């Protein structure tokens, strides 16, 4: 084991891992973090805590992660290169590890243009691949990015993101290979609706043996409505929602669309469980955390393995 991470232990045990997501609130309301996270207790191995997602200011992932840790859950600290330079990032990584946080997801982050502070400057001192390299170096070599020794180096289980659907498509496996070479232990993907295309991508991932070096967790997001399906299809950059998924959602009565969305997502998990190279699932139920237990159970991923 590279770390003390429960997520790493589950993955190394060969069982399918389950992660989910908790978006911190837009204010100093600890109770909201705890309420959301409590819905996930027992059903997931780790909980991603997003970092100013969609470039909107929220409670820091670091602070919200500590709240999760205090109630005995296992946060995955998301961090974006958009808002911090390498000094601030490393300081927060040490800080988080000091509080027992031992999973990270290294991201570049959405452009500020999409958020509520479009006038902000981008930092991007390093990019997401250099970020993975930095966290791995801190752990494995006990060195800061600048080269100096770290006292009690933070041992983070290092995650990265992958989008199998962005263009140019021929680079999607190659870019994952770069993240793996940089030191990514696990990868959580963009929400998967186009299962065939994802399976093709996974096939190429396995051909290169990347799944043996890095745990691949496809991202699963239940659709709440046909409107959400259309929005995801047309408005979210890098998202691939096939027309048949939109049609299926639109084909049922409005009050039954949420149930249909859950059904689609559970079917996807069942199908992808058979896909070679999958190490688990990242279930992102956006502002719908209460549905995660139901999805996990219906997908046959409950109970979660006890590895502690």
């Amino acid at each position: 084991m590279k770390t003390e991470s429960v997520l790493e232990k589950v993955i190394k045990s060969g069982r399918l891992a389950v992660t989910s997501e908790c978006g911190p609130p837009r204010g100093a309301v600890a109770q909201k973090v705890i309420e959301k996270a409590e819905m996930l207790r027992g059903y997931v191995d780790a909980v991603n805590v997003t970092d100013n997602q969609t470039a909107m200011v929220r409670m820091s992932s670091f602070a919200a992660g500590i709240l999760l840790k205090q109630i005995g859950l296992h946060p995955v600290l998301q961090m974006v290169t958009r808002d911090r330079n390498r000094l601030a990032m490393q300081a927060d990584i040490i800080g988080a590890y000091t509080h027992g946080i031992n999973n990270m997801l290294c991201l570049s982050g959405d452009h500020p243009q999409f958020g509520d502070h479009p006038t902000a400057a981008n930092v991007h001192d390093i990019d997401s691949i250099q970020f993975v390299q930095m966290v791995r170096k801190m752990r494995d070599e006990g060195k800061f990015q600048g080269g100096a020794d770290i006292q009690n180096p933070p041992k983070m289980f290092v995650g990265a993101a992958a989008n199998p659907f962005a263009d140019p498509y021929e680079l999607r496996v190659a870019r994952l290979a770069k993240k793996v070479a940089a030191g990514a232990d696990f990868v959580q993907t963009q929400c998967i609706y186009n299962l065939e295309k994802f399976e093709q991508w996974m096939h190429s991932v396995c051909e290169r043996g990347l799944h043996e070096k890095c745990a691949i967790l496809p991202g699963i997001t239940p659709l709440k409505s046909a409107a959400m399906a259309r929005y995801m299809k047309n408005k979210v950059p890098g998202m691939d929602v096939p027309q048949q998924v939109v049609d299926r959602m639109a084909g049922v009565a409005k009050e039954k669309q949420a149930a249909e969305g859950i059904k689609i997502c559970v079917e996807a998990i069942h199908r992808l469980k058979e896909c070679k190279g999958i190490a688990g699932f990242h279930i992102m139920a956006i502002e719908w955390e209460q549905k995660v237990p139901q999805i996990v159970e219906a997908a046959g991923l409950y109970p979660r393995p006890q590895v502690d």
Partner: protein
Amino acid sequence: MITAERKPLEEIINCVKPFERILLVGCNECVTVCAAGGRKEVGIVSSALQMAFLKQGKNLQIKEHTLERQCDPEYVEELSTMITGVDAVVSMACGCGVQEVARRFKTVPVFPAVNTKFMGASERQGIWAERCQGCGDCLLGVTGGICPIARCSKQLLNGPCGGSGSGKCEISPDVDCAWHLIWERLKALGLQDRYEQIIPAKDWRTGRGGGPRKIIREDLAE
């Protein structure tokens, strides 16, 4: 070249409002090429200012002059005979020219009439696009002649990010994805293998991270 765009006329009017006599100075270099602050634009702004003030019953005296190169002290010196009796200078050069005039003439206020934009190239008639951020340690040799620092919205040195679609950046359909361009170019050069070499974290000391920069050429410096 350095590109610029003229400021809104209202903003220029507000700057010169308190003054009676101004010197409007253009530059014959980059801002002439990008049609922002050359002799022609000096003439246009001069007429527009005069008209605007005449409407308000004020006769603004404007001297016009366009220097060969406003960022060069040798040429800026030409203004020393013209500046006598002038209340303010309005410079139509890039920020380098404005500052050179301010440095030379310490007691005369200088106002910029253009917004300096970026180092770029002309894509076609009337369109200029950013190409270089002057990072001080050129990477173009490894990125196929396309700069990800200047042209990727997230400045990714190992892109593209997940937001690239149909060759365009997620921030706008008008912005090319730099990494898409880099990849196409590497393919055209038969250098696809290079893509998977990780470009390490950049040393920003050669850029703005190292503070204001200066080049000293011992062989040329007096």
